């Protein structure tokens, strides 16, 4: 049974990435903590075997949101039409409301780096991203959300004087696209590049945010933080998520775990804590938006 054949499933609350190493345990337990799942389309397009089976099983249980790895919207090369068609087929199959990929480049001229490389914070990058997003939205027939990445070298360019949030806001405006807000990446960048993450969050246009990512990271001996998605979420990220949700309101939150996999039980513990934060923060958001009591109108 596909999602379409069933009542339409909506990604709401807290979800977990459907990764090969976790899939079997997720299907066996089918735990209430997992509200929805996220997949990397590159793992499922034109692929059979276990991955195809897992997708079918996931469709029977959860809403699925797609998160791409290879259509990085900062590339200067036009997209392969054949892949975009295949991707659209997959997005139709899972009834995806939008497609997200990274605000970065991952290759050029048909060569792929298989990593997320930072874009210079320039007007040329902004124009280029806007072109790629428009091309992609046309190709897949649904909105595109860009994800802010973590970066380890400073991509700001002296002639522009833009910091990361300036660049991100320019991109969102020029591309008129959605945002997958990675709270962990802002946290990592804030520590590595020494800025305060909360004013950054304050500048995010809430109406553009369609999804949030949180993850764990690794702190090296020299203090540099690497966004590994292979560690438990730290307290600072939990706090920043709480702050973000209270400001932005209900938005699907994904726990990204892509390596160094613990038993599912441990991840369920993290999901429970995320759900508690989600409930508190979104309730606070709603309360802050409720109209103030007013005296009855009198004739």
């Amino acid at each position, binding site marked *: 049974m596909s999602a379409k054949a069933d009542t339409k499933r909506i990604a709401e609350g807290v979800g977990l990435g459907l990764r090969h190493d976790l899939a079997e345990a997720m299907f066996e337990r089918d735990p209430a903590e997992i509200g929805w799942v996220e997949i990397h389309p*590159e793992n499922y*397009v*034109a*692929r*059979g*075997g*276990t*991955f*195809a*089976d897992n997708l079918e099983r996931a469709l029977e249980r959860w809403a699925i949101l797609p998160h791409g790895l*290879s259509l990085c919207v900062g*590339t*200067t090369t036009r997209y*392969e039409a054949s*892949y975009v068609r295949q991707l659209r087929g997959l997005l139709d199959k899972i009834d995806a409301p939008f497609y997200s990929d990274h605000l970065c*480049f991952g*290759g*050029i*001229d*048909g*060569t*792929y*780096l*298989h*990593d997320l*490389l930072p*874009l*210079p914070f*320039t007007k*040329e*990058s902004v124009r*280029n991203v806007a072109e790629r997003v428009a091309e992609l939205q046309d190709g897949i027939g649904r909105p595109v959300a860009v994800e802010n990445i973590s970066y*380890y*070298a*400073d*991509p*700001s*360019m*002296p*002639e522009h004087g833009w910091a990361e949030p300036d660049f991100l806001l320019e991109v969102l405006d020029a591309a008129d696209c959605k945002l997958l807000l990675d709270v962990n990446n802002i946290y990592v960048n804030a520590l590595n590049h020494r800025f305060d993450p909360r004013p950054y969050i304050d500048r995010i246009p809430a109406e553009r945010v369609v999804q949030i990512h949180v993850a764990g990271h690794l702190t090296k001996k020299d203090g540099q933080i690497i966004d590994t998605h292979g560690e438990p979420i730290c307290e600072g990220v939990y706090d920043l998520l709480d702050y973000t949700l209270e400001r932005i309101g209900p938005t699907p939150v994904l726990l990204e775990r892509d390596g160094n996999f613990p038993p599912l039980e441990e991840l369920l513990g993290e999901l429970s804590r995320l759900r508690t934060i989600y409930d508190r923060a979104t309730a606070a958001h709603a309360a802050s938006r409720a109209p103030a009591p007013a005296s009855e109108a009198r004739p």
Partner: protein
Amino acid sequence: MTSLAEVQRAFTRICFDHEPQAADLALLHDDASRWLMYRRMVRSRLFKMMRNGLPKTAALLGPTRFDAAISDYLAEHAPQTRFIREVVNELVDHALPGWAQDEALPHLADLARYEALKWRVGALEWPTTAPVADELDFEGRPVLNPTVRDLTVRFRVDKDWRSPSRLDGAHRVLVHQKPGSNRVYTYVLNPMGGQLFDAWRESESFAEGARHVLAANERAPDARFIDGMAGVLADMVEQSIFLGSARAPASQSAGPPDPSAPGPDR
């Protein structure tokens, strides 16, 4: 001012060249050591994928030679696929001409091709319009499993990857998935079995394929050939290499087959 595309090309060279060039690093702002960290991250992920995909080839070559082959691939070819799993096959395609000339490891090329084929078949999609087959009918059209891929080898690298003995004649290795299973299976045919497999996958009927093989070998069907062929065909159906027969075309019987015994090579 340096264009965005020039920056991206420089960055790509920094990651894939044997040694990063100072001129490329100079195009980027910030401390070069930070950009070189990206080089390590990019290469680490790709090296890991290729080691995972070709574990026996890597073990046979040893880490120094295997990693050198990866470095050459990255510098001279670089990944041309968005699917990271496919860098395994790209590496083998790139390194194979050199590996095929390796006199100290004459089975190296067969092993690498075999591992790469298993890797590729493991990722194949079972078609949504899977072929429908009736029970095996010798007069019927062969229905081949759509995931079957084959290669020709001189060494039984599927049995012994360290030091297999040279085979008497080129053997055919079939690699495939079975319906309903995600495992990858291997089946090996001797030269005559390989001829039958080729004939069957291209013929209108199993019988016609057998006749082609007999004619090509200028042989008459004898008991040895018939027994061998029957065994191979039964095996291939049991292994889901052929899924059975399509509705029988109007064709005449194969007549009594002839030549020497084709068979699986176990």
